[in-house]
């Protein structure tokens, strides 16, 4: 798939990655600015591998990745400047407080101290971490740790947020807070690409949904388009997803 629109938030073309067997096999994707994109797929489909390549954590064997027009493979530092990566396992330090963690992340991304201070305060309040902002993270619950990681991802004001199962282990209240933060980012002109196993989240939040199997994008579109494609006009996303994956496996 050739690159077309330079205003796209994320463009992936012909991506290949092989470990013992092919993990990603000619994957193409285009995510627009101001779009919330959900990536669905069965276990081992290659979702995390793709997102790790976008975040600069893995180098593809072949293919191209462009983030807001910047070639992520030839100029990874410039590409990383506008990307935030949130994994299902929160990447935080037990011996730092949330505030110290945000200070560290702001330093890594070279954020101006005054701007970082204001953003850190907003994020801590917004995510309900205010009471614990100056306590070490070692006793935090999984949900609180995930919120700290998310605050870290947002403190440098990224244009593209890449999330791998960010709602795993969160209670309903925390999950809602995280979803609101992400929607606000999209409304502000950023883009979000997220993998999830919670189909209801994809159904309710995503502007477009991509279905991946065996390292390839087998279908994408709005919920309605996917239902049409699966031939289950009135079915839920779950039905459409299972039908698409089953068709791909049979093919």
């Amino acid at each position, binding site marked *: 798939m050739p690159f077309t629109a330079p205003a796209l938030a994320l463009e992936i073309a012909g991506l290949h990655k092989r470990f013992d067997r092919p993990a990603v096999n000619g994957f193409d994707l285009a995510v627009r600015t101001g779009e919330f994109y959900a990536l669905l797929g069965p276990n081992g489909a290659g979702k995390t591998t793709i997102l790790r390549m976008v975040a600069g954590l893995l180098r593809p064997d072949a293919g191209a990745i462009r983030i807001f027009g910047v070639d992520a493979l030839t100029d990874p*530092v410039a590409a990383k400047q506008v990307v935030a990566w949130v994994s299902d396992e929160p990447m935080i330090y037990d011996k730092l407080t949330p505030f110290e963690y945000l200070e560290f992340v*702001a330093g*890594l991304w070279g954020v101006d101290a005054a701007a970082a201070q204001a953003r850190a305060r907003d994020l801590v309040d917004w995510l309900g971490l205010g009471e614990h902002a100056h306590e070490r993270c070692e006793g935090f619950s999984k949900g609180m740790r995930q919120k700290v990681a998310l605050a870290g991802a947002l403190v440098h004001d990224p244009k593209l947020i890449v999330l791998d199962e960010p709602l795993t282990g969160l209670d309903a209240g925390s999950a809602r807070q995280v979803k609101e933060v992400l929607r606000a980012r999209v409304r502000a002109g950023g883009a979000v690409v997220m993998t999830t196993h919670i189909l209801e989240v994809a159904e309710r939040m995503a502007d477009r949904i991509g279905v991946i199997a065996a390292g390839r994008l087998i279908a994408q579109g709005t919920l309605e388009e996917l239902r049409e494609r699966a031939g289950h006009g009135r079915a839920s996303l779950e039905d459409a997803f299972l039908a698409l994956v089953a068709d791909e496996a049979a093919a």
Partner: protein
Amino acid sequence: MNAPGTVVWLARHEFRLAWRDWRSMITAGRRRHGRTIVAILVVFAAFMHGIAFVMLPRQIGAGEIDKATLLAVTGCMVLAFSLLLSQSLESVTRAFYARFDLDLILSSPVLARRVFTVRIAIVALSLAAMAALLAAPFIDVLLLRDGWRWLGAYAVVAAMGAAAAACAVAVTVALFRLIGARRTRLVAQIVAAVIGAVFVIVLQVAAIMSYGTMSRYAILQSDAVVAQAPGADSLVWWPARAALGDPAAMGTVLVVSLLLLALTIVAFAPRFGAYAVAAAGASQAIARRQRPAAIRPASPARALRHKEWTLLLRDPWLASQTLMQLLYLLPPALMLWKSFAADAASLVLLVPVLVMAAGQLAGGLAWLAISGEDAPDLVATAPVPAGRILRAKIEAVMGAVALVFAPFLIALALAAPVSALVAALGIAAAGGAATTIQLWFRAQAKRSHFRRRQTSSRVATFAEAFSSVAWAGAAALAAAGTWFAVPAAVIALAILGGVRLISPATT
């Protein structure tokens, strides 16, 4: 008897885990065939027996056992026991706080008393096995040269393992009661470090004060101490007599130690479940309120250095390890103070001690900063070139090493400026080499796995040790003013070059 939930069943489970852990330690986590493991063990055993063969004197005093011999053997045993007790304290503390399976076991209907009975026994057994493994080459060589009476040393090793485990349990329980679950973890680590070092340090301090030398044997073999020691028929010497093959002493020492362990288990095991639950509560509530602070402007490199130093300062395991290193530096510091202005020439002896300690400390810190990164993805996704990240981490390590050794160097510089300059260069070289080796052998791991870092790469561990010894040797020769320092430094560099060739970064 082997039904689920029984002591035997639990012991089998613990043995299986211990065996796999040990196997993984031997093979550095790689899959290897049984034959390869046996070959590794045979080579290691042959090497250790070779060392023992060279180290031990050809003629062991047969016949009458005098006070000097008993004193020397007892000294060695106290030293070994203090190290076993230190290790034992760490193992017992881990039994409470390392909770990878404790939640599962304590939430099951199995009696907590049984679980901890087995765990304390396993700690004792592991200690005895470890001590026997390390002592075996020396005992075997003594058996070969001086006859069967040395077989008793194996029984004494088992007795020491049992006694050390019993003492460690008693100390940990006392700490739980005195200072509570929350503080016990850190204090037990510090107590372990102090116990592990204190005997050697006391002997060295006494030797420095009396004879102006750091050799701990100078005190044990001195006429004054031999004269003051109890008579050869005193009960104090029974452990030494047991090691030397006296059957009555051997039986008594073994029975007393096993009884001590059994009593400890009976007395404390029923309460261990409650202590473990308290320890879990402590780890949940350990978060501390800090003073709110403003975000300071920082470049990525500065942010990384600041983060590394903050984490190093707050690391309880590292605190105990560093404390141990610093404790070992006390005798040289005392020697420095004693020789100050009186005999600058003797200060040359301090140079290799400082260089060796710097190499070891830098290796540990470098592992924590480079391999023990708890948020590798976060750092890797930052818009900072990988080289700059590594440089900042290395700067953090070398900065910490400089901070620890600066007071010693300043004091040394006042008494012997040339020795201080050589020591500074040696510290930089040994610290730099140890850090470089950790860089070449870096493998992502959890920071909490610090104490197992040696098992992740045997080659890196030995390389780090050889490199530190080589630089310490070169620095000692340089401080003594001989040109032999040059070939010694070349050997140190050659070791580094050889390590580079076999490092994963190259292969």
